[in-house]
């Protein structure tokens, strides 16, 4: 199913679509205010981009440096080539710990690997502890945004969900009281957690520590109460030095939500005495992306979500319409790497306006990559026949002055003469489904220009 067809479902509720659009734009505006408060922000973006480019160019070496430092810290390091291996490693650690209860803070990687259903299938209780993630876990939905996982829901939806799952009063929609109910519910889970899983925002090669950024403190609470901490990280999370972290912590929260920094920026290097810490380093298609020069830069992504918040298509189509762990512009360049056929419509879910590229804190050329994916998909015959032949036809028209002129004449006449029902037939003109066609002018610019008197010769005494 294409992105456009799934987006249609989201668009059925016009009020909700408008709310979604405006809310994310509000976050984008907060981001702008936070960014303008930092004079060197553009310099920081350049540095972040440079540090990531450098790291990718020595990725194998930094991974080994990180592994050695982490092992010296007493951490168990595991390597997983794909999602299945990642899941198997985590199940194995959990079983060896004799545990059946896991508390988990946010990790898009475990989402990408479909860890939760796998563990539940093997008799393990997994509780997502980020509030947004817990809400969608109750509802058995995937996140619709990487930073704001439940942004597609209204407080009434959360009220209904909590009434069903937590026994809050029917009709209780107050965010403060709903959050308090979740706090009490999740505290009990934290206190009972045996194994805690976290994601990784940054992994520092120099010190072997992993850094986790949250506003709720759920990673800290889960990890520090459980006996076993498992941190799941993609190979691209590496940065060389502790001092590089200054650049990224200044960019991440400002780009994500407009905060100056996340409430907690936690550095986990060694297990507490008597406890265990494991790091699972995962590839799952990333080394393949590294080998594609046109798309390699997507590995620089620090998962702030700024590109989603600014994207006119994402804001009006909702995260679920992308049907991929990471939605929005960055997801649309990551997903075809995983499955080109399944995600072939995503690089077209963009206006190519470049706003995503403008806000990206690590300067990924997102809209250029979207454009490049379109070429790759065209070559690989992964675009619909109507689009393919339409493009070929337009290519011929635009290549010839004569054909273009004739076509223009024909179109201006046709627009005036043909009945509305024909020019707006959804089967023939999808563009006009939600738009009015322009009124056709009597003449083209070229015809008008040809009738103008020749301009006077330029004067020699110009100012």
């Amino acid at each position, binding site marked *: 199913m294409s992105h456009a067809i799934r987006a249609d479902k989201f668009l059925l509720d016009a009020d909700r679509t408008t709310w979604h659009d405006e*809310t994310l734009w*509000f976050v984008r505006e907060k981001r702008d205010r936070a960014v303008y408060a930092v004079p*060197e922000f553009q310099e920081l973006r350049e*540095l972040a981009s*440079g*540090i990531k*480019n*450098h790291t990718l*160019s*020595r*990725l*194998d070496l930094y991974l*080994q440096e990180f592994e050695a430092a982490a092992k010296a810290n007493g951490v168990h390091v595991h*390597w*997983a080539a794909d999602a299945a291996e990642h899941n198997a490693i985590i199940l194995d650690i959990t079983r060896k710990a004799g545990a059946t209860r896991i508390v988990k803070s946010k990790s898009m990687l475990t989402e990408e690997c479909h860890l939760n259903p796998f563990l539940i299938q093997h008799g393990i209780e997994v509780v997502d502890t*980020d*509030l*947004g993630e817990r*809400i969608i876990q109750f509802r058995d939905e995937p996140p619709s945004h990487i930073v*704001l996982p439940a942004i597609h829901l209204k*407080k009434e939806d959360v009220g209904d969900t909590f009434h069903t799952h937590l026994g809050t009063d029917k009709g209780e929609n107050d*965010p403060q009281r709903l*959050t*308090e109910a*979740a706090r009490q519910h999740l*505290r009990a889970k*934290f*206190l009972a957690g045996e194994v805690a899983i976290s994601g990784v925002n940054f992994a520092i090669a120099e010190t072997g520590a992993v850094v986790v950024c949250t*506003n*709720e*403190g759920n990673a*800290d*609470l889960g990890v*520090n*109460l459980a006996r076993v901490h498992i941190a799941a990280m993609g*190979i691209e999370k590496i940065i*060389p030095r502790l*001092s*590089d*972290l*200054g*650049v990224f*912590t*200044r960019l991440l929260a400002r780009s994500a939500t407009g905060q*100056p*920094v*996340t*409430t*907690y*920026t*936690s*550095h986990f*290097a*060694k297990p507490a*005495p008597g406890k265990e810490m494991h790091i699972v380093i995962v*590839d799952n298609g990333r*080394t*393949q992306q*590294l*080998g594609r020069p046109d798309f390699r830069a997507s590995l620089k992504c620090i998962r702030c979500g700024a590109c989603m918040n600014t994207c006119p298509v994402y804001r009006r189509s909702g995260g679920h319409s992308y049907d991929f762990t990471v939605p929005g512009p960055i997801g649309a360049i990551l997903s075809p790497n995983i499955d080109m056929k399944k995600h072939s419509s995503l690089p077209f879910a963009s206006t190519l306006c470049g706003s995503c590229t403008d806000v990206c804190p690590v300067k990924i050329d997102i809209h250029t990559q979207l454009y490049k994916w379109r070429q790759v998909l065209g070559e690989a015959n992964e675009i619909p026949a109507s689009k393919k032949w339409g493009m070929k036809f337009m290519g011929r028209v635009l290549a010839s002055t004569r054909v273009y002129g004739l076509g223009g004449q024909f179109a201006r006449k046709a627009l005036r003469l043909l009945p509305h029902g024909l020019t707006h037939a959804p089967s023939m003109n999808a563009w006009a489904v939600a738009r009015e066609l322009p009124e056709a002018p009597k003449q083209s610019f070229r015809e008008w220009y040809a009738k103008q008197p020749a301009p006077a010769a330029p004067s020699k005494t110009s100012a």
Partner: protein
Amino acid sequence: MSLTSRERILAAAKANKPEELPLPTVPDFGGEATVERFTTVLTGIGGTVVRMGGLQELGETLQQLFPEARNVASPLFRGTVPVNRETPTGILAEIDLAVLPGEIGVAENGCVWLPEANMLHRALPTITQHLALVLDQRQIVATMHQAYAQLPHTGGYGKFVAGPSKTADIEQSLVIGAHGARSLVVVLY
């Protein structure tokens, strides 16, 4: 003999990586390392800043700020609950107030560096209902760059704390007090 996943990932990363690019030097951007800036920013993100004359005033300051705190844990004075890294979860869960020494304050974002050695127990700063961080105002720096420059290593565990635990996951309404401490006071002296 088949390769392990480790060997395969490293080999693929080596084979597919681009030509080596230089590692940029991160400059010290300077900036404003003042109590005023720190206070404005931290207040803006839901924290509170209280100033006192010196450490000897701590007891009185806390009494005024938290008159109802029953279970108090701190390495700075004899609290009502002794906490160390062996303290059982059930006891930690009952703590009303933790008073911990912070080491570095960052003016640009209002965060305070809290190393493991200052926490009594790693879970204490988040499991406590309320958190007070005590900070020498001379330890305020302008930016994260300057903060990390003072940290050669972050130890076994340590964190920057900027305000109380919060969330906006329900319709983007900001709610203070998600899972961690419901309030954060930085006591400057």
